[in-house]
């Protein structure tokens, strides 16, 4: 028997609320399956299970807020001598280890499973997952509408806020449903916003209190990079075009691979290098707040792979559908505030990481080259780094490596 516990989905998370179980007792799961939707105070995260097995018991009901580490469910290893529930397969597989959930391990995102994943909205008793927008979910909680009784009109049948409101005011009188969505005190929009600010505030205060930051900045001519990108995009179909931020991410990732002291964690009084370059991509959330999920092994990805990865992360972050493995293990964060028109970012490091790279807006600036004054597109790259893990000398080298990478976009 092994335990599936409430994972730590980032250093700022102390507790979480199960919003939905996608499995029920008797279901067979395998490593990487998404088994629950968990609300941290910052986002709704799809939690993957680390080991396979047969779900024995769900210990924490939907709607209950529990601390990180609380056992959420128990499972029998597949193949163990257990009363196998009807429908569950007892495939002859080696019994998995006892650890239950990927918290710090950076598994590659599970490939699309060959076998259909047995998912069930446990509260709904249907055999498919209900797609619900976060806004609709909140509205349902506030209006006490049972989502299992709402038909979705959104993309792929997703339930939208309008559907929830229609269900509330629909032809049927709003009779009290037998099983109303569990009371979730933190779900109201105002509370949620406050909880998010609280979580960000606590983490940033810890960063400012514990991390002796030093700051460096470097103006980088991105003319060559942007010219190259424009030419490359001309040849590409719309859905394969690259954004300038992808070049910046790739340059940072490749530079970080050469500068291990910038890429990793400060824990228990010592630096621990990351096991790969997993870039935290800072994404502003709709309605306020931000989140920085991991783009795994970014230094080994092509520009196309980075582009696809970032598009996917942004879309899911903003729709409230990130996965637990993406939340727990970024090794270096990149924030790009250029789109909001600022010139540069003085970053605050995400503990326990040791550095953060920021980019401002690309602007046309007077630029001296070979004794001549010209106008070039320029971006200011900044580095906030932890003085316990590195010195300004190394930090300067890191920024210079990023600059050098951006002068050879064809190699990114």
């Amino acid at each position, binding site marked *: 028997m092994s335990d599936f516990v409430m994972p730590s989905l980032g250093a700022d998370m102390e507790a979480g609320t199960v919003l939905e179980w996608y499995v029920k007792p008797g279901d067979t799961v395998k490593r990487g399956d998404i088994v629950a939707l968990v609300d941290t105070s910052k986002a709704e995260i799809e939690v993957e299970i680390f080991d396979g097995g047969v779900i024995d018991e769900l210990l924490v009901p939907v709607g209950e807020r529990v601390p990180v580490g609380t056992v959420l469910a128990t499972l029998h290893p597949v193949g163990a001598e257990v009363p196998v529930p009807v429908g569950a397969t007892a495939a002859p597989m080696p019994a998995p280890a006892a650890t239950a959930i990927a918290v710090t391990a950076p598994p590659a995102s599970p490939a699309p499973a060959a076998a259909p994943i047995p998912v069930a909205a446990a509260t709904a008793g249907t055999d498919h997952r209900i797609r619900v927008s976060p806004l609709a979910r909140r509205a349902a909680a506030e209006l006490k509408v049972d989502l299992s009784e709402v038909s979705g009109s959104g993309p792929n049948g*997703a339930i*939208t*806020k309008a559907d929830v409101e229609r269900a509330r005011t629909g032809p049927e009188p709003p009779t009290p449903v037998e099983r109303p969505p569990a009371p979730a005190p933190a779900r109201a929009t105002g509370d949620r916003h406050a909880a998010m600010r609280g979580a960000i505030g606590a983490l940033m205060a810890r960063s400012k209190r514990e991390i002796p930051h030093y700051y460096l900045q470097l103006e980088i001519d991105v003319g060559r990079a942007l010219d190259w990108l424009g030419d490359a995009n*001309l040849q590409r179909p719309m859905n394969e075009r690259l954004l300038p931020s992808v070049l910046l991410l790739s340059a940072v990732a490749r530079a970080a691979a050469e500068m291990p002291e910038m890429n990793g964690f400060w824990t228990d009084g010592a630096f621990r290098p990351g096991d790969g370059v997993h870039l935290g991509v800072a994404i502003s959330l709709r309605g306020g707040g931000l989140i920085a999920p991991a783009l795994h092994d970014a230094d080994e990805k092509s520009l196309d792979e980075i582009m696809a990865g970032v598009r996917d992360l942004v879309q899911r972050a903003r729709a409230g559908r990130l996965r637990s493995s993406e939340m727990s293990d970024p090794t270096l964060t990149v924030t790009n505030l250029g789109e909001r028109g600022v010139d540069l970012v003085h970053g605050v490091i995400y503990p326990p990481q040791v550095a953060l790279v920021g980019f401002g807006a690309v602007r046309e600036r007077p630029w001296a080259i070979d004794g001549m004054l010209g106008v070039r597109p320029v971006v200011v790259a900044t580095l906030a780094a932890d003085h316990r893990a590195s010195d300004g000398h190394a930090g300067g080298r890191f920024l210079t490596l990023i600059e050098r990478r951006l002068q050879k976009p064809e190699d990114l």
Partner: protein
Amino acid sequence: MNTGQDFRALVISVVCEVAPDVDPAAIDPDAPMAEQLDIDSIDFLNIVVEINARTGIEIPERDYPKLSTLNDAVGYLSRAQALLTRQ
């Protein structure tokens, strides 16, 4: 898919897919969507790619600014569609 009304519904539907919390009724059709709806460049790319997928209308990168407001986008798509039809 050939009237302004159809394009309006399509753009709104795609925008709401990318930005699920947006209330379609609250979109100001003449204000830039980026600021109004907190759409960033990746959101925008996702929007134009989806519009392309649903309509077949090719939108060159240099034309992206011509789709910045809802009304602009509807106008652009209507003209593009008219050109396609004439060919």
